[in-house]
C-alpha cells in the first residue's frame, strides 16, 4: 500500500487561529470537525477478514476516498475529514481511511483524536506499525512520554532506519529525564540524516543544559548553517554565546533570533488558520510577504506555489510571484515563475509585458524581443 505522506509539523498549538469570512467552511466540514473518531462504526471480524487490501488511490477504493485524497492534497483538512467520515461510516475500518484520518487530525493539532484514529488503524492493520510514527508524535504532544517512547520503539523495531522515529525517541527520553540516551538517539538521527537541522538544535539544547557550552555552540552553529531561517538555532546561539561571555556575538544572534521569531510566530498563526481555511488568498499572500521579509527563499517559494495553485491562471498572482522571487534574488525561482507565466497566461498582454522586463534583466535579448512583440500584439501598454 502506498498511502499519502505528510511532513509532520512540530510545535505546540497556537493560542488562536484565524478564519476569514471568505474562507468559511462548508457545512459537512463543520459537522466533521464536531465528530469524534472513537464513535465510528466498527467492521465485523468477518468483514475485515474478507477485505482485500486496497490502495487509497485505487479505483476500487470506497466512494469518498478519492475526494479525501484530493482534499488532503489541496490542504483542505476539514473537507478531507468530512470525506473520510463518509468513507468510514459506509465502510467501517477501511484501513487507508483510518490512517489518513489520524494524520489529518494530527495536522489539525487534535492529538487525542489523532491518537484514537491511529490506534484504531493498528487494530485493523496490525502489521503496519512502521507507518505509525505519528502515533508516537501524538502521545508526545499529549505529554505521555512513556507511551511515546514505547511506541517509537515499536516503530523502530519495524523500520530501524526511520530517522523521525529516532528523533521522537530521543525527545521522549529527554522528557523522561535521560539526557544521555537522548543524545545517543539524536546521534543516530544524524547518522541517518546528517542534515537534520532539528536534531542538531536539540543536541545543542541538551548539551547547553549539561553545561557543555563549547559542544553546544558547535551543534547550534551546525543547526543554524543547515537552516538559517530557523529561529530556534539563533535563540540557542544567542543564549550560549552570552553564557560564554561573548557578548557582542551573543547580542547579534539574539537580534537575529528576535527578527526571525517574530516572523515565525506570524507564519505559525497564518499556517494554523490555513489548516481550517486553506483557500484564503489574502492569507497566503501574507505568508509570502513574511517569508520575503526575512529573506527565506525556500519558504517563500513554497508559499508562492500554494498561492498560485489557488488561481492558476490569475495573471496578477503569477506576476506577483515573479516580482517576489526576482526581488529576493532567486534566479532559479524567477525562471520557473517566468516559464509558468508563459504557459499559463499566454493570452494576457500584461503577462508578456512583465516577461519582456524579466528577459531584459536576465540579458536574454531574443526572448525579450519576442515577449515585447507578443505584448504589443495583445494590446498591452
Amino acid at each position, binding site marked *: 500500500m502506498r498511502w499519502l505522506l505528510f511532513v509532520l509539523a512540530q510545535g505546540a498549538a497556537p493560542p488562536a487561529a484565524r478564519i476569514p469570512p471568505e474562507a468559511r467552511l462548508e457545512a459537512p466540514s463543520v459537522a466533521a*470537525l464536531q465528530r469524534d473518531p472513537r464513535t465510528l462504526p466498527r467492521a465485523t471480524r468477518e468483514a475485515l477478514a474478507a477485505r482485500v487490501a486496497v490502495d487509497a488511490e485505487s479505483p476500487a477504493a470506497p466512494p469518498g476516498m478519492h475526494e479525501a485524497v484530493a482534499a488532503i492534497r489541496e490542504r483542505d483538512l476539514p473537507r478531507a475529514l468530512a470525506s473520510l467520515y463518509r468513507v468510514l461510516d459506509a465502510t467501517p475500518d477501511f484501513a487507508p481511511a483510518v490512517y489518513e484520518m489520524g494524520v489529518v487530525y494530527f495536522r489539525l493539532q487534535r492529538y487525542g483524536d489523532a491518537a484514537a484514529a491511529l490506534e484504531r488503524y493498528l487494530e485493523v492493520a496490525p502489521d503496519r506499525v512502521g507507518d505509525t510514527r505519528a502515533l508516537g508524535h501524538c502521545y508526545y504532544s499529549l505529554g505521555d512520554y512513556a507511551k511515546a517512547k514505547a511506541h517509537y520503539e515499536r516503530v523502530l523495531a519495524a523500520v530501524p532506519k526511520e530517522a523521525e522515529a529516532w528523533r521522537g525517541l530521543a525527545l521522549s527520553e*529527554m522528557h523522561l529525564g535521560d539526557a544521555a540516551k537522548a543524545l545517543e538517539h539524536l546521534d543516530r538521527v544524524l547518522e541517518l540524516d546528517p542534515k537534520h537541522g532539528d536534531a542538531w538544535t536539540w543536541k545543542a539544547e541538551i548539551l547547553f543544559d549539561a553545561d557543555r557550552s563549547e559542544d553546544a555552540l558547535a551543534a547550534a552553529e551546525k543547526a543554524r548553517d543547515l537552516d538559517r531561517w530557523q529561529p530556534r538555532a539563533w535563540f540557542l546561539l544567542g543564549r550560549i554565546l552570552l553564557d560564554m561571555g561573548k557578548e557582542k556575538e551573543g547580542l547579534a544572534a539574539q537580534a537575529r533570533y528576535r527578527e526571525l521569531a517574530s516572523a515565525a510566530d506570524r507564519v505559525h498563526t497564518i499556517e494554523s*488558520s490555513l489548516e481550517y481555511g486553506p483557500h484564503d488568498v489574502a492569507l497566503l499572500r501574507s505568508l509570502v510577504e513574511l517569508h520575503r521579509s526575512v529573506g527565506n527563499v525556500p519558504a517563500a517559494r513554497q508559499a508562492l506555489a500554494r498561492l498560485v495553485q489557488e488561481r492558476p491562471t490569475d495573471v496578477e498572482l503569477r506576476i506577483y510571484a515573479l516580482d517576489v522571487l526576482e526581488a529576493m534574488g532567486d534566479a532559479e525561482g524567477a525562471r520557473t515563475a517566468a516559464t509558468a507565466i508563459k504557459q499559463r497566461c499566454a493570452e494576457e498582454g500584461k503577462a508578456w509585458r512583465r516577461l519582456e522586463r524579466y528577459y531584459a534583466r536576465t540579458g536574454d535579448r531574443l526572448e525579450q524581443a519576442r515577449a515585447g512583440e507578443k505584448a504589443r500584439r495583445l494590446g498591452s501598454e
Partner: protein
Amino acid sequence: MLPILLSFGAIAPQSPQFTEIGSRALPGVATHCGAAAKDTILEANGGGVVLGDFDDDGHVDVVIVDGSTLARVAKGEAGFPPRLFLGKGDGTFAPAPASWSMAGGRWGMGGAAGDMDGDGWLDLVVTEWGPNRVFHNEAGKGFREITASAGLVGDGWSTSAAFLDYDKDGKLDLVVVHYLEFDPKTVGKPGDGDCRWKGHPVMCGPKGLVPSHDQLFRGKGDGTFEDVTLRAHFRPTEPSFGLGVMTLDYDDDGDTDVFVSNDSTPNHLWENQGDGTFIDVAFARGVSHDGNGKAQASMGIAAGDWNGDGRDDLYITNFSGESDSLYASAKGRGFRERSAAAGLAGPSLSTLGWGTHMIDFDLDGDLDISVLNGHVYPQADLPGTDTSYAQRDQLFRNDGRGRFTVENLSDAAPAVSRASAYADLDGDGDVDLVGLQVDGAVRVFLNGAHAGEGAHWLCVRLRGRTSNRDGLGARVIAQWKGGSRREEMRTAGGFQSSVPPEIHFGLGAVDRLEHLVVRWPSGIEQTIADVAVDRRLLVEEPER
C-alpha cells in the same frame, strides 16, 4: 487483606494532601468575572486574593478582590467591592465589620498588602481594570480609601502587584503589572479575525490587542508613591501582556530583582543595578522563553530554592499545550529550563495553570509545587481540544531526588481555577491555600500534613528597624547539621495575589537549627544560634 496486598507492592490509595473546606470556611462567598460565555478577554482572568493579618490578632485574614460584569460597566455601575474576611485561626473566616468595607472600583483584578507607611499595620492595594486603589489600615480598626492622594497614576488594566524595597531605603515600593488596552466597545467578537482556537470561535486576545507597559512606583514612606518607571529604566522597548509578578534576589547580590510573566510575549527579569535602575536580563539569563525559544503564555509564578544551590528557582504556569516551566538557577549564570528533567513537563502540558507556589507542603524537607488550573475558553470542552474548561488542581510532590510526582491537589471536583495564595490558616504548622475560580465560590484548601516527628517546620517573621518593617527582600538561611536552606522574605503571590510577610521552612527530620542567619536589606547580617523548630519566630533587626 490489605497488608498482604501491600506486601506485594500494591500502593495504598493516598488521600489528597488538601481538603477543600470553602463552603465552611467562607460560606456563600463567591467572585464574579463577567458572563459565563466569556466572550471577551476581560472576563477571563478572575479576581484576586490577598492574605495578611490586617487586625494583628495573630490569625491570617483574607481579602477577596472581586470583578464585575460588562452589563454593570455599560450601565456605569461600580464593580463588586473587595471584601475582607477575618481569620478565626482554624482555617475559617468571618466577614469583617463595616469599618473594613470598601467601595467597588471599575473591575477588580488582584492586590497586594504591605505596610506602606511603616505604622505597623498592613495596608492594601487593589489592582483594577481602571484606576488602581489604595486602602490605608486605620490601626487595625478598618480601611480608609486614600487612592486620590496615593499617586498610583494610570487608568489601564493592571493584573498583579507586589511590594518591595528596591532602593533599600526602608520604605515600600510597588510594582504594578499591566495586561493590555481593553475597550468593550471596540473589542472583536468570538470568531472575528484571529479569534479562533483549534477551529472554534473564542474570545479575542491577547494577540491582536495592544499590550501595556508595567509600572514601578517608589514609596515615600507615608502611603504615597511616585511613578519612577522611566527614571528606573523599568520599561522594555516593546510593551508586553503582563500577568504575574515575583520579587526575588536572583543573583544574590542583596537587592531585589523583579520577574514578570507575560502572556504570549517574552517574560522579563528586571535585574536591580543597585543604583535605582533596572536592566531586563531575561534573555541572557534564560527565562524569557521556553527552551525552544518560544514565548509562552505565562500566568503564575512561584519562587523557591528547589535545587538547594542558595538561589531562587522559578516555576511558571503556562497555557494548555505548553508545559509549565521550571527555571532552575545555574551556578550563578542565570537559569536552565528543567521542567522535562524534573518530570513536570508532561503532567502540565494539557492544563492551563494560574496560581502556583513552591512550598514544602508535606513538611518532608523539600519544596513541592501547587498549581491551580482552569482554561480561559469555555470552548475547551468542545471536540478536539485535548483539554477541558474545568481542570483538576495539581500538587507536584518533590521526591527528594530532583523529580516530582503529580497528584490531585485536593478532593475537590475539577474547577476553572485562577489566583491562589498560601499561609498557615489554621496554625497547625503546615501551609494551606486559598483559591479563586474565574467566577464561583472561593475555595479554601486545608493541608493535611501531620506536623511532628519527621515533619518539622519553622515560620519566621521579621521586624525591620533600618530595613523596611516586614523585612521584604531579606534573605533568611536555616542551617542544620549537614544542610541548609535559603528563603527570601516576600509577599508577592505570583498571579493577582499576595501572601503574609513570613517565611515557612519545611524541615523534615531536622528538629533543631544550628543557626538561623538573616541578611537584612540594610546590609546587617544577624545570626541566631541553636534555634528550636515547630514554632513561629519573630526576628528583630539589630541596631547598627
